């Protein structure tokens, strides 16, 4: 090498861009992808890593939280007054409905006892704030700013005021990841509220899809779909969505339906987590009445007995947990009296539908 050539600078660059190193890193990355896809031991490692990631999530959620704070502070007095009035009216209506539903729930419990049906366990809800960050847009996920320290555990159903949102799939100390209904890995066992046909709703990224509807099932556009409670992951009777379109599938033997989710999946501030609560108890004096006289007791005492949820409803900030009655499913049944009675149509669907044991959690 001539002396004027100077030190060999270029060779260093050549080293840095050597294809061997590239191949090594590519192999490493592909190994990671494959391992993650198979969801073996890596999932445990991932759970550990999520604990480390959590403070970064909190940091990234900060601008969103600040934004809402600023919005709250900037709201004018007039806006607040009107909003307050609206909310108060809504609370009044909701309370009136609640008392009516309580009598219905009590009646239901009594009738169940008369029929010797197993007691349905009650449900409690817990309020959890959403951490405002955008995760990978391919996967429909949500991060909650509440974790195991607040009693959140994997498998809990997540709802909002409209209906079912999804389920908790991972938790750390103070954050939890929710798999939304619309995730392609998610499926929910449901029934058509109008006639009790059992089906499965699959996520499709942005919308929901109802597959393998028998042509004879009599499912129509506009039907309300509620959870069926099969599989045990989701409690029965929560609205999932309503059918917006029906089309025949490739075999022309079944229909495929598109669903509009009942819950507001894109963004809110808080969600509700379901957890088992105490069952609706029949007060002892009513029980004696019912067994002696053989007819359902009058409604007056029933409304009196359960005033506790009312108290918690009037100041929702306290506690955060209140009684919840899974009654919304009952409403469409009552309204559509003209269609075939609720009991019979369950039979044809039962043999044909695959019975999902669990909603598919992302492992293929």
């Amino acid at each position, binding site marked *: 090498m001539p002396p004027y050539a100077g030190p060999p600078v270029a060779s260093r660059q050549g080293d*840095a*861009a050597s294809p061997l190193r590239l191949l090594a890193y*590519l192999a*490493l990355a592909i190994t990671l992808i494959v391992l993650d896809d198979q969801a073996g031991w890596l999932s445990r490692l991932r759970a550990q890593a999520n604990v*480390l990631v959590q403070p970064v999530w909190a940091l*990234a959620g900060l601008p969103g939280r600040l934004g809402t704070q600023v919005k709250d502070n900037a709201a004018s007095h007039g806006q607040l007054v009107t909003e307050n009035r609206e909310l108060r009216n809504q609370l009044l209506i909701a309370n009136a409905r609640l008392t009516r539903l309580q009598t219905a729930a009590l009646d239901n419990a009594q009738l169940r006892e008369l029929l010797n049906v197993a007691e349905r366990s009650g449900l409690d809800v817990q309020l959890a704030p959403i951490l405002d*960050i955008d995760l*990978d847009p391919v996967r429909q996920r949500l991060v909650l700013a509440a974790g195991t320290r607040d009693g959140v555990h994997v498998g809990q159903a997540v709802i909002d005021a409209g209906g079912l949102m999804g389920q908790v799939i991972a938790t750390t100390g103070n954050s939890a990841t929710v798999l939304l209904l619309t995730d392609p890995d998610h499926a929910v066992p449901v029934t058509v509220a109008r006639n009790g046909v059992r089906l499965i709703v699959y996520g499709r990224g942005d919308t929901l899809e109802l597959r393998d509807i028998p042509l004879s099932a009599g499912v129509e556009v506009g039907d309300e779909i509620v959870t069926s409670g099969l599989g045990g992951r989701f409690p029965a009777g929560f609205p999932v969505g309503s059918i917006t379109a029906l089309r025949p599938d490739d075999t022309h033997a079944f229909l495929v339906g598109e669903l509009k989710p009942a819950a507001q999946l894109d963004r809110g501030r808080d969600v509700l987590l379901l957890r088992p609560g105490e069952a609706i108890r029949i007060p002892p004096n009513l029980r004696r009445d019912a067994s002696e006289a053989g007819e359902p007791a009058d409604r007056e005492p029933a409304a009196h007995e359960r005033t506790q949820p009312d108290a918690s409803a009037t100041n929702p900030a306290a506690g955060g947990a209140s009684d919840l009655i899974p009654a919304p499913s009952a409403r469409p049944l009552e309204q559509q009296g003209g269609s075939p009675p609720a009991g019979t149509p369950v039979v044809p669907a039962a043999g044909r539908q695959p019975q999902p044991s669990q909603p598919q959690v992302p492992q293929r």
Partner: protein
Amino acid sequence: MSRLRDKPWVLPVSLVVALLLGLLPLPALLQPLRPYWLALVLAYWVIETPDRVGLGIAFASGVIADLLYGGVLGEQALRLVILTFILQRFRARIRFFPMSQQILAIGGLLFNDRIVSAVVHIVVGEPTLPWSYWWAPLLGMALWPLVFVLLDALRFGRRGR
């Protein structure tokens, strides 16, 4: 890059900020246009200080990003390693390009990155992103001069180079 005193903290801080910007909530309409901040920042460092930032850092930051964004583990690592390798190969030329050509080169890289990501999704069996997400490289191109000038200013102090 020897005589100019640059600040060592700028590199890690810029990578962390890029990771956070990727998580920042955007309105649903803008979400598809979210530029790939991590790739932009990494590209700057690969072009400017190739002896400090190479495939190793690209891989590590990619894995961290995958953990943060909850995607397929290793996907972004793969994308960033490919991007870094191409940049290292053409660094000597890209470095002396005028800004307009640099922008085009970065746009090409980001577009290629989209293709790699789509391939990974198809192979793994995940759904691919909607077509609106393919506009994001354009925004990334537009932001490149900004990132470049900002990082340069941070690195060498207020007076510029």
